[in-house]
């Protein structure tokens, strides 16, 4: 129920730079996902927002209010830790009720609200148990219940599903999204799993080494990655990233063992660049056993059938390319096949800056 602004946040742990000049706005009632590999500073960001950690420099605002010096307990922020951090000596009921007990709500009110939330989370039959008598999924729900019960202005979730098995993970992530919508909290959800991020996020902020790489809707990140890191991180299977050089005279991209003609509309954009990286998604490639116009011959390296689809890895001397085909396409390892590129869906990055050109 508030807009969160991170302004030039930098955080050092000793000499380790955990966050590097992070600027990010999280809109009111939005579910923002912080996505990035382990150690990129996601937890640190959450802890700064919760007030558990002080930024080395920079500012944090809730709405227009500067929060830097506001103590943790006065922020009305709820946080679900990766470990859940349920209080082991308290029953489930007391765990969920805890924030209201501390806020000195009347007993009847507490009972009513705990019952309500326990029903929503389908844990109303577990209220008399101690945390150690619950399964991982149940513990997770209790932690969520405790986080939601006081209708927090900000809801922080640190890899809330990381400790659950795959099936439960898929189930819970849609549930979390639904809950966040109905409680109208501004939520920040941390994960290193890009599929999870894509499926739950209103917007995603991609972090790497404490630096913000790109912010956008899942769609934007998928179709218009700003740089090589985002391009490679988002999407399954990950995008093919191929080293090549741009030959301005001939107007071709030279991959060593083959060349591709650059479409006329892109040529001017590439002016001045020589070493570039071409990114193309495995689904934007067509593979066939016969020669097609503008196709190049490659050898089948491995085949990974995935049920509906098959991932084929193709190779020539110095390139490996992943292609997704229909399962009916059969080929043998070592066989020669023809691949055509959908050049309109191609991404081109500057090799030096790793930034997107096209």
């Amino acid at each position: 129920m508030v807009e969160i602004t991170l302004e030039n946040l930098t955080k050092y742990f000793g000499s380790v730079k955990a966050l590097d000049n992070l600027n990010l706005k999280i809109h009111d009632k939005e579910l923002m996902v912080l996505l990035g590999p382990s150690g990129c500073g996601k937890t640190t960001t959450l802890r700064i927002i919760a007030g558990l950690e002080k930024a080395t420099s920079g500012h944090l605002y809730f709405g227009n209010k500067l929060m830097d010096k506001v103590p943790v307990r006065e922020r009305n922020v709820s946080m679900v830790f990766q470990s859940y951090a349920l209080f082991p000596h308290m029953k489930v009921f007391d765990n969920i009720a805890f924030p209201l007990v501390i806020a000195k709500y009347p007993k009847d009110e507490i009972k009513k609200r705990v019952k309500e939330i326990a029903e929503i989370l389908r844990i109303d039959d577990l209220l008399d148990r101690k945390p150690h008598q619950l399964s991982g999924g149940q513990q997770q729900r209790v932690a969520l219940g405790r986080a939601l019960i006081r209708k927090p202005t900000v809801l922080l979730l640190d890899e809330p599903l990381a400790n659950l098995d795959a099936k439960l993970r898929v189930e819970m992530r849609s549930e979390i999204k639904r809950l966040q919508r109905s409680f109208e909290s501004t939520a920040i959800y941390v994960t290193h799993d890009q599929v999870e991020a894509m499926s739950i996020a209103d917007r995603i902020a991609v972090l790497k080494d404490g630096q913000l790489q790109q912010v956008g809707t899942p769609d934007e990140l998928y179709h218009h990655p700003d740089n090589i890191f985002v391009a490679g991180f988002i999407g399954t299977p990950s995008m093919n990233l191929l080293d090549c050089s741009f030959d301005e005279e001939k107007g071709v991209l030279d991959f060593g063992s083959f060349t591709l003609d650059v479409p006329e509309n892109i040529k001017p954009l590439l002016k001045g660049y020589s070493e570039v990286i071409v990114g193309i998604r495995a689904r934007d490639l067509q593979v066939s056993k016969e020669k097609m116009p503008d196709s190049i011959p490659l050898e089948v390296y491995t085949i990974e059938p995935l049920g509906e689809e098959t991932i084929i890895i193709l190779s020539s001397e110095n390139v490996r390319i992943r292609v997704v085909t229909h399962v009916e396409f059969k080929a043998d390892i070592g066989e020669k096949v023809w691949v055509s590129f959908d050049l309109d869906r191609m991404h081109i990055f500057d090799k030096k800056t790793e930034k997107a050109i096209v």
Partner: protein
Amino acid sequence: MSGILKKIGEPSYTLLEYVVLITLMTYVLTPLLWLLETSVNTDPVPYLSIPKGITIDHFIAVLTNRPITGGYAAHPVYMTRWIVNSLIISGTTVIIVVILAVLASYSLSRLRFRGKNLLMTLILLSGFMPRMAMILPLFQLCRTLGLVDNLIGVAIVVASGTLPTQIWILKGFFDQLPRDLEEQAWICGCDRVSAVFRIILPNVGPGLAVVAFMSFLSGWGAFTIPLILIRREYLFPISLGIASVFIHNPGEIGLVVDYGPTCALAVLYAIPSIALYILLRERLMEIRLARLEVR
């Protein structure tokens, strides 16, 4: 048949184990049995004997301060008072140690400050130091503060002796408790103090129990410190009292020591340690099991 032969042929380790065990038990338990026997014997004598009859009169005598008439032994008149004195010393020691150990070990476990390692080393070292090495300054200090012939004074000195060890023990328990729990408490709206009381202390129950137990015992068993700080017989703790029974009656001790009540007092003296141990052991086991299940 062949089974028995086989057993004789191979020396059984279990038999050896039993021999060792029984020897040890005889060694440990004989004095205890002796003590128990004398304390309930209608005709207590200073050697192990089959009681002619069983009585609890000696215990009643000790607890009500009423001498058993008809004996020719001198009955110490302060026995009941000694029990109370020991309880006061031990109880006060527990209170002092638990409060100070909680404060100190929480700070050492959770706060970051300059010179922390040095401070911890000093605490550890002072715990190793024998109390008697410092008895002169301690005595002078107590005299200046009016703590001679004062039970609270004894408790303070005893507590100062055991405190360093207890701080280290409790710090270990605090260190093991995940910080997450405390941080979650803050997020839920607790300040530091209420987080300690509502979340941390309930989860270091076993640690508190150990500290309380050990400091109770150090007060209950204290001998040398009361010996130096307590002059008046009615302020003796049990330890000094029992000793004084022998010291006051030199010579043929068998004729003058009132063995029945003295042994009854000694039995009573032993009970709290054993009871506390049994109580605590169950609590420790229970909590450790629960902990294991959580993760």
